[in-house]
C-alpha cells in the first residue's frame, strides 16, 4: 500500500462517521481508528469578556508545536524543561551555534532560562546543525523541538 493510497483512504474516511476501519488483503493489514473529535490543534476559545476592555491579550504567545518531519539521519533536540529559549549566553555574546555549525556530543547548543536560572542545553549527538526552530527569547514548553542535528556518517 503506497502513501498515496493511504492518503486517499484517509480522505475517504474523514467525511464519514466511521470510527474504526480494518482492512486485510494481499499480506497488507491496515487499521484506522478515528476520534469523533478533531484533534491536534488546541482550541482557543474567544475570551468571553473581551468587551470589558480590562483584559489585554497575552504578551507571550506560546506557539503550538509544529513537529518537524523526522528523517533517518537527523535527530531533534527538544526542550527538556519549560522556559525561555536563548541562542547565546548573553545579549552581547555570539550564538552558541548557527545552521551549518559542526557540533559534538556534550557541546552547548542553547540556553533555556527557567526560574532565573540559565539551563544549558547540550547536544546529545555529534553532527551538523540543520535547523533552529526557535527564535531568540521565545517561550518554550516541554517537548518542543529546538534544534535539528544531522548525524555524522560515523556517529
Amino acid at each position, binding site marked *: 500500500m503506497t502513501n498515496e493510497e493511504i492518503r486517499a483512504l484517509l480522505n475517504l474516511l474523514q467525511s464519514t462517521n466511521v470510527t474504526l476501519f480494518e482492512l486485510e488483503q494481499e499480506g497488507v493489514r491496515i487499521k484506522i481508528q478515528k476520534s469523533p473529535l478533531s484533534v491536534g490543534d488546541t482550541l*482557543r476559545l474567544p475570551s468571553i469578556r473581551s468587551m470589558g476592555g480590562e*483584559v489585554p491579550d497575552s504578551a507571550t504567545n506560546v506557539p503550538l508545536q509544529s513537529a518537524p518531519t523526522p528523517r533517518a539521519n537527523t535527530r531533534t533536540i527538544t526542550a527538556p524543561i*519549560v522556559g525561555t529559549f536563548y541562542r547565546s549566553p548573553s545579549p552581547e555574546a555570539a550564538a552558541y551555534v548557527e545552521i551549518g555549525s559542526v557540533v559534538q556530543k556534550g557541546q552547548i547548543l542553547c540556553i533555556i532560562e527557567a526560574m532565573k536560572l540559565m539551563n544549558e542545553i547540550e547536544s546529545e549527538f555529534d553532527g551538523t546543525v540543520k535547523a533552529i526552530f526557535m527564535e531568540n527569547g521565545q517561550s518554550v514548553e*516541554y517537548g518542543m523541538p529546538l534544534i535539528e542535528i544531522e548525524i555524522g556518517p560515523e556517529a
Partner: protein
Amino acid sequence: MKNTPPFKKVLVANRGEIALRIIRACREMGVRTVAIYSTADRESLHVRMADEAVCVGPPETNLSYRNIPNIISAAEITQAEAIHPGYGFLSENAHFAEICQSAGVVFIGPSPDSISLMGDKARAKSLMKETGVPVVPGSEGAIVSEEEAMTLSREIGYPLIIKASAGGGGRGMRIVHQESEFDNALHAAQTEAFQAFGSKEVYIEKYFQNPRHVEIQILADTEGRVYALGERDCSIQRRHQKLVEESPSPVLSSRLRQEMSDAAVRAARAAGYVNAGTVEFLVDDRKNFFFIEMNTRIQVEHPVTETLFQYDLVKAQIRIAAGLPVDPPGKSAGHAIECRINAEDPWTFAPSPGHLDRFLVPGGPGVRIDTAFFEGATIPPQYDSLIAKLIVNGRTREEALDRMARALAEFEIEGIRTTIPFHIALMQDEAFRKGTYSTGFVEHFLSRRPWERPS
C-alpha cells in the same frame, strides 16, 4: 458596571474536572487562564478550554503535574499572576506555596505556614486542644510505659485502638474491647510493629464502632471574616475513598451543626487560616464529635456545598487570594448529594481505563455535572479514576435521592466499566435511604451482594 477581575491571568496547576472547574470560575470573572498538561493530556478538555496551555512534562506526575520548576516557569513565560493548585498534586505542598511566593506568583490557597501546620497531625491536634475543639482522645505521641498506658486507657475508656507510630495498613494495630485484653494486645502490637517497621513505638486512641465522617466547609478572607458553610456527610466510603457525599447530614441536629460549625470556625481562626478549607470530624453514635484533620484546599466534593448555598467556592478562593472580601454565604436550602463516577468495576472497584465509545450525560432539573470527559475521549491509565461528579439537589432528601437515581439511570457510558451500577443500587437501598449509615456501611452493603438484585 462590570467588576474588575481579581487577576488578569491565572495558571491552573491541575488536570481533569477540577482544572475545568477552575477555568470556569475564571471565565465567569473575566480572568484569563493558562492550562498545564502532560504529553498524555494533549487532547484533554482543560487544555481546549483554557485561553493558553503549556506542556510541562511527560505523563508521570512527578515530571509534569508535580514538576514545580516547570510549573513556575510556565507561569513566568505566560505572565500568570496567580496559580490555582486544585486538589491533589501540589495543593497541600507548603514548599510549592513558598516557591510561588518567592517567584512573585500568588498561590491561591492558604499560607505555607497554615499548610505546614495542618499537615503535621500532632501539631494540628494539639492546637485544636488548646482552642477547645474536641479531638479524638488518646496518648500524646508514643506510649512510654505500660503503667502510663494502662492509666490512659482507663481515662479514654473502651473500646480503644493501639496503632504503630510508624504504621499503616493494619499492621501493629489492635482493637481492645475491655481492660482484661489490654496487656496482651499491647505486647502483640509492639511485637508486630517492631517486626513490620523496626520500631516498637505505638500510641493509643479511642476506637469508634460506627463513626460518621462529617466535615465543615470554611471560608476565611484576609480581612478576618470566617464563615462556615454547613457540613458534608462523607461516611459512604470504601477503604477511606469517598464515594458519595451529601448535605445536610441525615444525623445532624441543627444544634449539633451549630456546635460543629462554631468549632470549625474557631479552629480556622486559631490557625490564622485564610482561603477555603475543610475541617473533618468523626461523629460517634452518641452524637459527640472529634476533630480529625483540616484539609487546606478545595475538596472534590465542594459542589455539594455550592449547590445548597448557591455559592461559588472557587470564585471565592480566587477573590480571597487577591485580597478581596468574600460575601456572607446566607442560608442554604434543600438537600444535595454527589456521586463520584469512577472508571472502575462497580463491585470490585478495579480500574477500568479506556475509550469512551458513548458518553451521554444526564440533564434536566437539579442536576449538575462536573467532568472533563466527552464521547470519543480516552481515559488515560496514568491518572486517577474519577471521570465525573454527578451532583443533584432536591427540596427534600427523598427528592434528591430519587433525582440521583433518575440521573444515574440516564447516564450512558460505553467502552469502560463505571461505578454507576453501584450508585444506582445504593440509591435504592432501604438502609441507605434511612440515612443511618456509618463509615462501615459500604462494606456491609457490598456483603449483601447488591449486584444480584434485579434492578
